[in-house]
């Protein structure tokens, strides 16, 4: 589905210094796969996401979607950020419909789907509310609906639950798994939490600090559908331990917050 071949990103600072944000990234992401990326802050995870969706040009190497190189914005991707980024002058429903408007598709074709998505995430009846009337978790649910409305093949999430409290965070994880199972999307999920990555993913990509490289790719063989109880399985613990150890070994010091 998505193939990343020898992708590198070099930023040039004002005084001409070259900063290697990403070096030689190789990764294959399968159809309907749930892949998480973990690594220390500032290791270029967000840069990688921006390159995947075509918002940032790649310095060398290439990224392919179904064999086709990414050259500009990929409209078949839905994005979710750490903050909900709902537009405060729009109702919840209008926010969900935002991509439909930008893509100049017919409102009528998607209106029912927007209602259905909102109902799926427990926001039925909130269609006409304004964002400020919603809690942080509810706003983020609306943001997920917005990412799904135009039926993208890929969902790209940049620490989507990072701003939420631990309880809401776990609920949202379960919710996301349910949506993923129902809509069958390919998910690329960046997180700071190793536990979250292990719990949600098929594979966890572990990155190192600068120059950012892939240190390891860990396949999580926990059964699906995942439940919160699985976090207490010994296998779960050993995955978390293994990933933590990889980061510690590569980094010298662990900069990760484990929740």
């Amino acid at each position, binding site marked *: 589905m998505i193939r990343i071949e020898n992708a590198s990103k070099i930023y040039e600072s004002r005084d001409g210094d070259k900063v290697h944000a990403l070096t030689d990234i190789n990764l294959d992401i399968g159809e309907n796969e749930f892949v998480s990326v973990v690594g220390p802050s500032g290791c270029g995870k967000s840069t990688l996401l*921006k390159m995947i*969706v*075509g*918002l940032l040009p790649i310095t060398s190497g290439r990224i392919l979607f179904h064999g086709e190189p990414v050259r*500009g*914005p*990929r*409209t078949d*991707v839905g*994005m979710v*950020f750490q*903050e909900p*980024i*709902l*537009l*405060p*002058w729009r109702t919840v429903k209008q926010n969900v419909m*935002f*991509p439909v*408007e*930008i*893509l100049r598709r017919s409102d009528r074709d998607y209106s029912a789907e927007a209602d259905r998505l909102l109902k799926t995430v427990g926001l039925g009846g909130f269609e006409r509310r*304004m*964002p*400020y009337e919603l809690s942080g978790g509810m*706003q983020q649910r609306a943001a997920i609906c917005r990412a799904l409305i*135009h039926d993208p093949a890929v969902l790209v999430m940049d620490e989507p639950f990072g701003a939420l409290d631990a309880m809401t965070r776990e609920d949202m994880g379960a919710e996301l798994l349910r949506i993923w199972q129902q809509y069958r999307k390919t998910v690329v999920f960046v997180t700071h939490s190793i536990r979250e990555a292990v719990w949600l993913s098929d594979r966890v990509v572990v990155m190192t600090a600068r120059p950012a490289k892939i240190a390891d790719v860990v396949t999580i063989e926990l059964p699906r559908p995942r439940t919160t109880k699985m976090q207490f399985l010994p296998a779960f613990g050993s995955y978390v331990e293994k990933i933590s150890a990889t980061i510690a070994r590569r980094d010298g010091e662990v900069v990760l917050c484990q929740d």
Partner: protein
Amino acid sequence: MPGLSLSRRRITDAVQEWVRPVAALILLIVAWEAVTKLLNVPVWLIPAPSEIVAATFERGTEVLFHTWVTFYETLLGFALAIVLGVPLAVAVVHSKSLSNTIYPLILVTQSIPKVAFAPILLIWFGYGDFPKILVAFLVAFFPIVVDTATGLRSPPPQAIDLARQLAASDFQVYTKIRFPSALPHFFAGLKVAITLAVIGAVIGEFVGAESGLGFLVIESTSHFKTPLAFGAMMLLAIMSMVLFAVVAIAERIVCPWYGRAS
């Protein structure tokens, strides 16, 4: 009884918001009247409120005409500031090089004291309304450009990313994100600009005019008709407050979502 306590609370709120300030104002006017009368203060020095009102009404139609002149000078200057200020703000935000070129120039025009510039405008454009409109425009222009530019830059970068990733055009980014985001800042600029525009028009009239409330102040003080000068001053204050209120109400109608915690 929750219903009763709620309505009682509403009444106390109304008292806090309206009754007290109005009562304070009335008290001030009464005290002013009493002090000037009791101490026998000369009318040309500090007139009593009753004398101000009498003098103003005595030349009612004339005063009304002067008020109208200052009113439209203010509004035209203000409108011109919006019409030119908003596109300039867009230009400044859109292009870094344009911003580097224009911003210092705007700052220079803003740094020139308008009182010093007004006589020169008079030489250029004569005694008519135009120089007054121009001074009103010049003072109102700056806050509109600066605040609108700030507003256009206010949306979070992720909001722009969200649109860009959906292959949004520049036009869509402006109409769907930047302009609506800028509205609260735009209105903040308008509120400052409208009160400044009144002052600008008056400055223009001070320098040389045949009509307007600023002219009326100059003319009446030169003949020691202090009550009329006070009357003109009051009318200017009222005009300024009413215009401000109109902008504030427009703001509430246009961006009701602003100021709510998200």
